[in-house]
């Protein structure tokens, strides 16, 4: 394949616009223009696979086919999309009777797919092929003294862990160190945020995220750096409820890793979606000036 195409997924057009607003400029800074995949459809997330696995893989197949026509590999910043597209890709390549049926249906709908596309997460792309050096060279304002808890969540590192460890990954920590920040030893880094549970059974979602925030606080983190819209959302939106319920001030900004990289590169703050933070960022600005 010849280069990458950007698959935003629904979240980056919805509640995580600031992820899109920061990831695209960061890639531009290292000379990678990411164009959006034309007329992409939703990946179906965990929901569609819980209802109908065949349809779930088929709608992912349409996206893969669109990218294949352009001769591009996919970059998917949402860990949910990343996993779902990767999982469907693997399934469609499996040669099973079920996979054959889906490939035939794709063919009939005018979006045939021959399995050439690779699905990548931006974190993976940024730490590979000497791009880390390129980023380092672009840093104008190292985030000195900023203690960052790197949160990977689940679906980026499991079950398809071809670029990092499923339990104790380090690529994001390396990246944060490269921009001058100080990664803390965050033992919750791959513990689940509960996914959509915060919306369905709030009590459980609250506790899962409280465990993560408490651990980050205990390690002296100033901010949690995330790579997934659902994780970002879950860790951020319930903080005021947690403070009340557990009588523990775990308030902390939850920022996308790309926002922090952009900041270190000296890109204008206003363009990186910081105003979309629900948590007050004043302590952060005071710390890094």
């Amino acid at each position, binding site marked *: 394949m010849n280069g990458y195409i950007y698959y935003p997924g629904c979240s980056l057009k*919805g509640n995580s616009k600031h992820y899109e607003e920061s990831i695209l400029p960061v890639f531009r800074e290292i000379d990678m223009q990411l164009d959006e995949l034309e007329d992409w459809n939703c990946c179906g997330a*965990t929901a569609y696979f819980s*209802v109908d696995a065949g349809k779930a893989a088929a*709608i992912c197949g*349409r996206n893969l086919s669109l990218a294949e026509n352009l001769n591009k590999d996919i970059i998917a910043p949402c860990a949910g999309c990343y996993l779902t597209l990767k999982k469907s890709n693997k399934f469609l390549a499996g040669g099973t009777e079920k996979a054959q*049926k889906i490939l035939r249906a794709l063919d009939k709908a005018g979006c045939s797919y021959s399995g050439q596309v690779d699905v990548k997460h931006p974190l993976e792309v940024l730490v590979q092929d000497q791009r880390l050096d390129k980023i380092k060279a672009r840093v104008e304002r190292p985030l000195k003294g900023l203690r960052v808890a790197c949160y990977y969540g689940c679906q980026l590192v499991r079950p398809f862990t071809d670029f990092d460890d499923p339990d104790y990954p380090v690529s994001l920590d390396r990246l944060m160190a490269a921009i001058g920040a100080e990664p803390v030893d965050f033992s919750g880094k791959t513990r689940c945020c509960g996914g959509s549970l915060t*919306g369905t059974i709030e009590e459980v979602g609250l506790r899962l995220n409280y465990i993560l925030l408490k651990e980050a606080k205990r390690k002296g983190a100033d901010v949690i750096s995330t790579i997934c819209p659902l994780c970002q959302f879950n860790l951020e939106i319930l903080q005021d409820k947690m403070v009340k319920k557990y009588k523990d001030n775990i308030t902390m900004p939850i920022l996308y890793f790309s926002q922090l990289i952009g900041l270190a590169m000296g890109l204008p703050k206003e363009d990186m979606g910081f105003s979309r933070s629900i948590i007050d960022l004043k302590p952060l600005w005071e710390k890094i000036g």
Partner: protein
Amino acid sequence: MEIQRKVKYEEELDRQFLGLVKELSGCEEIDRCIQCGTCSSSCPMSVYMDYPPRKIIAMIKNGFKEEALKSFTIWLCPSCYTCQVRCPANIKITDVMYALKRMAIGERVYPARFAIPVLDKEMSKIIASNGRNSELWLILNLYLKSRKPWGLLKMAPLGLKLMKTGRMSLKKESIKNKEQLRTLLKALKEEA
């Protein structure tokens, strides 16, 4: 005190269940489970589950179909894949959970008015017809269908914050080529 039987007699078990789950999950290794408990001790949700993952696997092996399909366990699993990457017998436990969710929806035996399967179904419907999800509309459907409209009131302050920061839109998202999506899903039906 009345003594009640807690375990099923052999003739009450479903002998077809194991084979069916293997087929639907694509995981052939289920009978290799050594009941080591690695899955249950790794699972961040087991403290909330009625049967932790190790028990679910044992129940599948032995034909406790009704109990497995009606459990809260399968809906509490947000697919974190921790159990799956750690299982020494290579059992794809997360995929097995997915297969059970699909069977429970297919047989309509999931807990009534429980928000999680409702969310999964509503979201799938929105995607099948529009090609994209719309967060706000999904939430509205969820509360209407799980018949807890008052839940919306509790969500209002959050919705306001998201509106203020431009993170929630009222627009119904959709792809351009909906026709292709329809053809694809229809063609898939014909293949089945």
